[in-house]
């Protein structure tokens, strides 16, 4: 096979101040230049995305007095995919007095991420976590309370303290509504302008600085250029590269990918999280997968029949013939092992013939013991909406019959590379929330994405972007600027190309086929041979896509097929980079399991000597191999250890 990538100069974060971890954020904030309130009004920021990260950042910057232009592809900012998060949000409040602290949250996150994240960023995340809960309560987020009126918490996979705050099974919804309301308050105040049903299709870079975006008005098809003093991407993750995932149908990589093509490094694209508790696939027609929050693992016990191929109904299988395999293999953490461990364990059970349900791709998550212990009402109070959803989809009653679950793609740790200030490798382009790669290393702990999104949006970006804006005054530019015109032409050319192919296959059929390839070779387990094969398959399919896809209609109308074609076109390019990244990382770590690199008892085997770095990829051209830029990771505060949850 021809050379798939080249290696370039290493990169480094230059923004985290030296000194002890606990002093860095304070020092950075003090070191950042401030802008006086009267001058903020003259500065504008483009904010793409209205999820937890984007809405909280837009509201905060608006309140600080900047002029913010916000964009989302849905018809309301409140519908960003953060709305779907179920289980909860972490914070090191230690209200339970169970030994939690900033340091422990930091430690758990670095360990959970299998030592592939930056200490400085993670420590800061743990540090601001408590303020997030304060902020949300002040906004009226109705977190669960105990009878004394105090905030309730629960525990989540991968940790032994109870630090997850929640609002029944709708934590993401409640947090997002809080941020959305803060955003709408700023719209009312005239500081933020929200453009719904607008999709970003290109980044505008002028003199090496990010200055604007090209967006398509999804109702009229009109292409618009918007310019500002800085651009922030808060556009979420790229799980939909797999076609089937727990993400919303519109989630995409287009914003981040287009920025990548314009020079932003893309870090660790192969670190994708497979969530252990989703409803199994029921058939060919399936358009998305539904998550059952892993908080269910607090009360549910996971098992399969001891005998392979056992087709008895679960109720007919006596206790002695059930294998509670997580409790057996990981006595210390049991059903609460981290996601990657739980997912692979389920896959192994199914591969060895112990799977249940149609096609044998499922394991039981059984609430019977918890219902017997706590009563049906208590379970309904905690998980009612999830269990209703399960019943609607499967037509089975989870209060009586064990639920069937199987892993599904859920979250992407990879994303655009950012430094301590959350600035990408393009000056003036900041990336927050799931769209960046920053805090979760090779595996994210449950309830930490909501924390990160809000930390980035309410607390971190608003304290770093001012430094950039203060130090980088730029000349005003409008849509007639040659770079803006060029970007607009690129977008128009690409849309016209889609519409002119007039082939024979639907966009979705390509997306499904692409997703199946990525899932097979770059999913729960990867190996060199498969990944090389996958690169070939992706290239061939991409070629076919660009010659045989059928996109009906015209650009100047509401055209949902055209929207999807653009997203899938970008997924093709990302998929190839994911496979190259997975191929080059010959170790296993976190979610990235290379079959060639495992311990004697089948656990992920890291290779810290070779791979203790962030793989940041540089785009070098359509037909030229990407360039690897390594950011070496140094650990001064945690000791690198083989993860063990036994």
């Amino acid at each position, binding site marked *: 096979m021809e050379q798939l990538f080249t290696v370039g100069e290493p990169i480094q974060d230059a923004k985290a101040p030296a000194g002890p971890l606990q002093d860095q954020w304070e020092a950075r904030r003090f070191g950042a230049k401030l802008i006086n309130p009267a001058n903020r009004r003259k500065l504008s920021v483009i904010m793409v995305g209205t999820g937890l990260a984007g809405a909280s950042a837009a509201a905060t910057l608006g*309140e600080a007095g900047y002029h913010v232009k916000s964009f989302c592809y849905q018809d309301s900012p409140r519908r960003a*995919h953060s709305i*779907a998060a179920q289980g909860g949000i972490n914070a090191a409040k230690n209200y339970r007095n169970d030994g939690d602290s900033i340091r422990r949250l930091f430690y758990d996150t670095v360990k959970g991420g299998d030592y592939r994240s930056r200490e400085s960023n993670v420590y800061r995340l743990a540090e601001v976590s408590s303020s997030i809960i304060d902020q949300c*309560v002040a906004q*009226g987020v109705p977190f669960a309370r105990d009878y004394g009126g105090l905030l309730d918490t629960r525990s989540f996979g991968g940790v032994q303290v109870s630090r997850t705050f929640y609002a029944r099974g709708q934590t993401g919804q409640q947090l997002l509504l809080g941020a959305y309301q803060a955003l709408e308050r700023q719209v009312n105040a005239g500081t933020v302008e929200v453009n719904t049903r607008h999709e970003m299709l290109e980044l505008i870079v002028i003199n090496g600085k990010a200055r604007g975006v090209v967006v398509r008005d999804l109702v009229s098809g009109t292409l618009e250029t918007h310019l500002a003093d800085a651009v922030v991407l808060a556009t979420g993750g790229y799980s939909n590269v797999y076609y089937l995932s727990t993400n919303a*149908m519109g989630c995409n990589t287009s914003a981040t990918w287009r920025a990548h093509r314009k020079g932003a490094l893309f870090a660790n694209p192969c670190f994708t999280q497979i969530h252990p508790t989703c409803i199994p696939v029921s058939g060919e027609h399936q358009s*998305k997968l539904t998550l059952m929050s892993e908080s269910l693992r607090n009360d549910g016990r996971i098992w399969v029949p001891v005998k392979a191929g056992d087709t008895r109904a679960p109720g007919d299988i006596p206790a002695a013939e059930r294998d509670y395999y997580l409790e057996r293999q990981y006595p210390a953490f049991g059903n609460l092992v981290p996601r990657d461990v739980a997912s692979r364990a389920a896959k192994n059970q199914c591969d060895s013939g112990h799977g249940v349900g149609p096609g044998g791709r499922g394991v039981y998550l059984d609430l019977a013991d918890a219902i017997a212990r706590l009563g049906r009402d208590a379970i309904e109070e905690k998980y009612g909406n999830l269990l209703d959803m399960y019943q*609607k989809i499967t037509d089975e009653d989870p209060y009586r019959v064990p639920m069937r679950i199987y892993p599904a793609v859920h979250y992407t740790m990879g994303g655009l590379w950012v430094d301590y200030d959350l600035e990408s490798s393009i000056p003036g382009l900041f990336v927050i929330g799931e769209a960046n790669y920053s805090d979760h290393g090779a595996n994210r702990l449950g309830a930490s994405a909501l924390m990160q999104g809000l930390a980035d949006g309410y607390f971190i970006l608003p304290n770093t972007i001012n430094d950039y804006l203060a130090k980088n005054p730029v000349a005003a530019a409008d849509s007639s600027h040659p770079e803006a015109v060029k970007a607009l032409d690129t977008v128009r050319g690409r849309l016209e190309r889609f519409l002119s192919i007039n082939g024979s296959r*639907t966009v*979705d059929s390509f997306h499904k086929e692409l997703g199946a390839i990525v899932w097979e070779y770059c999913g729960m387990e990867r190996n060199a041979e498969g990944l090389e094969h996958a690169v070939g398959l992706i290239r061939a399919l991409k070629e076919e896509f660009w010659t045989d896809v059928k996109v009906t209609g015209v650009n100047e109308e509401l055209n949902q097929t055209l929207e999807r074609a653009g997203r899938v076109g970008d997924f093709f390019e990302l998929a190839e980079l994911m496979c190259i990244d997975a191929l080059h990382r010959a170790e296993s770590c976190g979610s990235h399991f290379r079959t060639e690199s495992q311990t004697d008892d089948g656990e992920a085997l890291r290779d810290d000597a070779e791979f203790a770095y962030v793989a940041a990829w540089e785009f070098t051209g359509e037909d030229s191999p990407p360039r690897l830029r390594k950011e070496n990771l140094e650990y001064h505060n945690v000791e690198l250890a083989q993860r063990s949850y036994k």
Partner: protein
Amino acid sequence: MNITVRIWRQHDRAAAGRMVSYGVDGISPDMSFLEMLDVLNDQLTAVGDDPVAFDHDCREGICGMCSLVINGIAHGPEALTTTCQLYMRHFNDGDTIDVEPWRSQAFPILRDLVVDRSAMDRIIQAGGYISAPTGSAPDAAATLVPKKDADRAFDAAVCIGCGACIAACPNGSGMLFTGAKANHLGVLPQGQTERHERALAMVNQHDAEGFGGCTQIGECTAVCPVGIPLDMISFLNADVLSALPRKQD
């Protein structure tokens, strides 16, 4: 299953629309209603017709994007269910199913089954928030919230903002949606200070957007996918009344 769907087709806001019939074959009972429409759209694309435009995103009942009137009922025949969570097992082989957009004065049709619901955002803009500054707040444990108030706020806060209540209302009223927000924030200690002004500001915007008045018919709560109860409107009305005399002095 083989079924027939009769769907509202309309090219854009200004165009005239009409119902058009399509046959869709080979539908499995485990498909969701929207997956059935995906099959139809593949069929249309294959012959070069424009697929049917409809709103959807999360497909798990939480984002509030999906919005179809199915056989005359907003979100279809199943109670407490969004369009995207409706499964074909609730229909029979040979059925003819009518599919229409949310119809309401304040919701212009943009194309086929897609409508403009931005008026609902503007109601929130007018006052549907607590004026808590971002970036600094007292410790979360400093405010005790009695569990019953937290639960009551939560029951209102689960509104997904879909607009089914409005589509179902013979008056095109948005009072259930507005009442849910007034309740969510109005029963919490943090929301007391602005409580009455908030209610009044939202109702004023509601009226300005062209939503109709509430005559307590109850169609709204019957179609609401998360079961927002009718008494949320009474709460809202009470708050508005409390705000009025103060406005006059």
